[in-house]
């Protein structure tokens, strides 16, 4: 039937579109979000904790830590999808069981990070931003078609690609050039993914580094998202089979601190102006936080405030895709020791549950135990 998709010109075969929609619907199940487990190096190195940084970053430890996380009993009540690094997609745990099987057996969907990061030399002619390098272009399109096919065959059903934009009002960052490159690249990636049956997570991250205020972030996020959805339309992306992973609208790490209500209001205002309802779900990244902030708690509180203040007014599933903000307490509980396994799993489950409550707008501040700001160390920002 030619109008199966409301008259949208058929870019893809009907069965592919149907599968994309089905996967997207499962990913956007009420109360559920993503575990972003796609860190390039050992995930504990990103936890910002001095003791955790001492754990050797070897393949066995990564397998042990990740299989611990993915096999957490009951995790699928709060986590619909797990984003994996390429290594993990083809990895087995210590007992020879495939990671993908652990995830699927535990009731979740496997996703795959398919970008190849960026060169910090950046795009020639752009200015150096708060990250300490010029504006950058994420690479990985060249063999993406092939890699998506392989990932699908291995069992992945969604993918993720992250572009990075910096804010600096005094230098006019993000520049129009960086925005144009970002939205185009993400649209190309989304197009290729969908052709291979993978639901693309579109992630135009605006990093919080800098001393700008929250209003500048709101404005630039709006500008970026407006351009992003125009690009997705131009590239014929099937919006019902894609999801968005944006930054929350927040103040710069060194800028004047905004209240959770302001963060919630400006973030939702920006999304309501730019994201069409056809997108089934928006999954926030947690991103960097200041040294004196509890990364996990902040991410949960902010999400909960949004869903509470705007209850009934948001046409998309508004959820989380957290890496650091789900795993920090878990990592610090585990600290590389097998005997801590159950306690670590419990920590992960608790934080996942807290974020699930946040999706319903019902999280009570402080009700989930967290390691907090203990042991925070300065982190070099970068791809993870």
């Amino acid at each position: 039937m030619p109008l199966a998709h409301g008259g949208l010109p058929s870019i893809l075969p009907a069965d592919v579109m149907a599968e994309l929609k089905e996967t997207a619907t499962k990913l956007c199940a009420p109360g559920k979000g993503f575990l972003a487990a796609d860190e390039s190096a050992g995930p504990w190195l990103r936890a910002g904790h001095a003791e955790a940084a001492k754990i050797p970053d070897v393949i066995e430890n990564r397998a042990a830590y990740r299989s611990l996380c993915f096999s957490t009993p009951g995790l699928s009540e709060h986590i619909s999808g797990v984003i994996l690094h390429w290594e993990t997609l083809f990895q087995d745990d210590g007992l020879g069981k495939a990671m993908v099987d652990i995830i699927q057996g535990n009731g979740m969907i496997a996703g795959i990070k398919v970008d190849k990061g960026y060169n910090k030399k950046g795009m020639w002619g752009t200015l150096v931003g708060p990250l300490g390098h010029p504006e950058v272009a994420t690479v990985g399109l060249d063999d993406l078609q092939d890699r998506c096919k392989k990932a699908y065959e291995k069992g992945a059903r969604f993918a993720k690609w992250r572009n990075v934009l910096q804010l600096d009002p005094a230098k006019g960052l993000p520049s129009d050039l960086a925005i144009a490159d970002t939205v185009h690249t993400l649209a190309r990636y989304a197009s290729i993914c969908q052709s291979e049956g993978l639901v693309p997570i579109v992630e135009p991250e605006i990093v919080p580094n800098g001393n700008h205020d929250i209003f500048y972030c709101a404005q630039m996020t709006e500008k970026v998202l407006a351009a992003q959805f125009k690009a997705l339309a131009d590239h014929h992306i099937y919006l019902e089979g894609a999801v968005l992973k944006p930054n929350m609208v927040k103040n710069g790490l060194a800028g004047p601190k905004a209240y959770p209500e302001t963060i919630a209001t400006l973030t939702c205002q920006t999304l309501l102006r730019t994201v069409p309802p056809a997108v089934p779900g928006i999954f926030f990244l947690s991103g960097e936080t200041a040294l004196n902030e509890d990364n996990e708690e902040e991410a949960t509180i902010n999400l909960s405030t949004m869903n509470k203040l705007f209850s009934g007014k948001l046409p998309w599933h508004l959820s989380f895709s957290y890496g650091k903000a789900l795993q920090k307490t878990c990592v610090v509980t585990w600290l590389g020791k097998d005997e801590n396994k159950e306690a670590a799993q419990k920590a992960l489950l608790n934080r996942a549950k807290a974020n699930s409550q946040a999706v319903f707008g019902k999280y009570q501040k402080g009700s989930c135990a967290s390691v907090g700001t203990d042991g925070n160390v300065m982190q070099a920002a970068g791809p993870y």
Partner: protein
Amino acid sequence: MEVFVAARPQVVPVQAPAGPSGLAGSRPQRGNAALTGALAAVAAGVAGASARRRGTITAAAKCRGARIARKAWRAYRNCHGGEHLSPERKRQLEAICEKIATPGKGITATDEGPGTIGDRFAKVGVENTEEHRRVYRQMLYETPGVNNYLSAAILDPETLHQKDDEGVLFPRALEQRGIICGVKPHLKVYELPGALGDTVMQGLDSLAMRLREYKEAGAKFAKWRSPLQISRYSPTKAAIEANMRDLARFALICQEEGLVPMVEPDIIMKGDHDLETAVAVNVEVQTNLYKAMLEHGVYMEGALLKTNLVNPGLSCDTEYMVEEIAVANLMTLRRVTPVAIKGVNFLSGGQSLEQAAARLNALNKVKQVKGSCPWNLSFSWSWALQAPLLRLCEGKGGKLPLKEMSELYLKELAIASAAAQGKYEERESSLR
């Protein structure tokens, strides 16, 4: 809701420290000392850094610093979302939008200029006098009961200054009945040379001044129609961008003058294109429109959309069911329309009342079933409502049978209102 629009605090600018800095919570105006100081510091810093390397401050280094500062201003002022409007102005605009987007109510579009309405009168043997135009419009606004179905009316500038039989100016008379008065500013269509049918609308140049007059006369919103036509050659990308940019600028000027802008991209029904082509063109046009509006800094929560239903061309061979068209419309809306816009009023564009009502009704029914459709979907009809009324004039020797027209008009509006809620039962059409 108060917390929804978080305005930038209007505080005394915090003195920026020397060197690269952010905007420290202040609202920069042109010539804001803190921002200018900060940007000058950046420029100096850049110039200074390269000067320190080379040992001299060259002209080139100074220029580079100034270029960076200029980049900062340009980036900063883009996409500002109506930041220049006061919180009170924003609330006023939003309040008008909310009233116009009342569920179950729609708009009577009566903005035909004297020339156009003259053609319609001529076809049914009525003389085109100012008095005839006056009493005809009076019937459209003041028939008892119409205010149950109408949230707004769009007037031609001439009608803004006309009075009803009691001597009350029409904008006031409408206001008394709870119907919001809007205006269609004078526009002139201009064919783009060499573009095989693409047009733009002229009328931006003196718009601000004219809007001020319209506002004083009692208008609360203004509507601008940009027609586009689907053919083998059109609409071209250039024509789409030009028209949508004009609509964005129109919206910006309206809001500055205190009027809600009703932007109307109208892809007319003429042509033999199928529904899928119509969908593709509508998506292209509307994504261009919203990006232009956002980039110009239009306050989206204080703007409204009037547009065509996505329809196959009039001479298209394929027959589509009403439900198919409804689903195509709903999905297109959901794929492109910002949630911040409160309502969409569909034009009739030559459809009969039955056809327009059936399609609007099907759309509202599908909306209830499929969910996730946050906009009020209603009508803004001229031809669909007025064609049957004018037909009543035939054979009446040039007179306007106002009482008969009133009765029919009220029945039509009841149908329109039902369609706007998905409650229109076609079998009950009691027009004849």
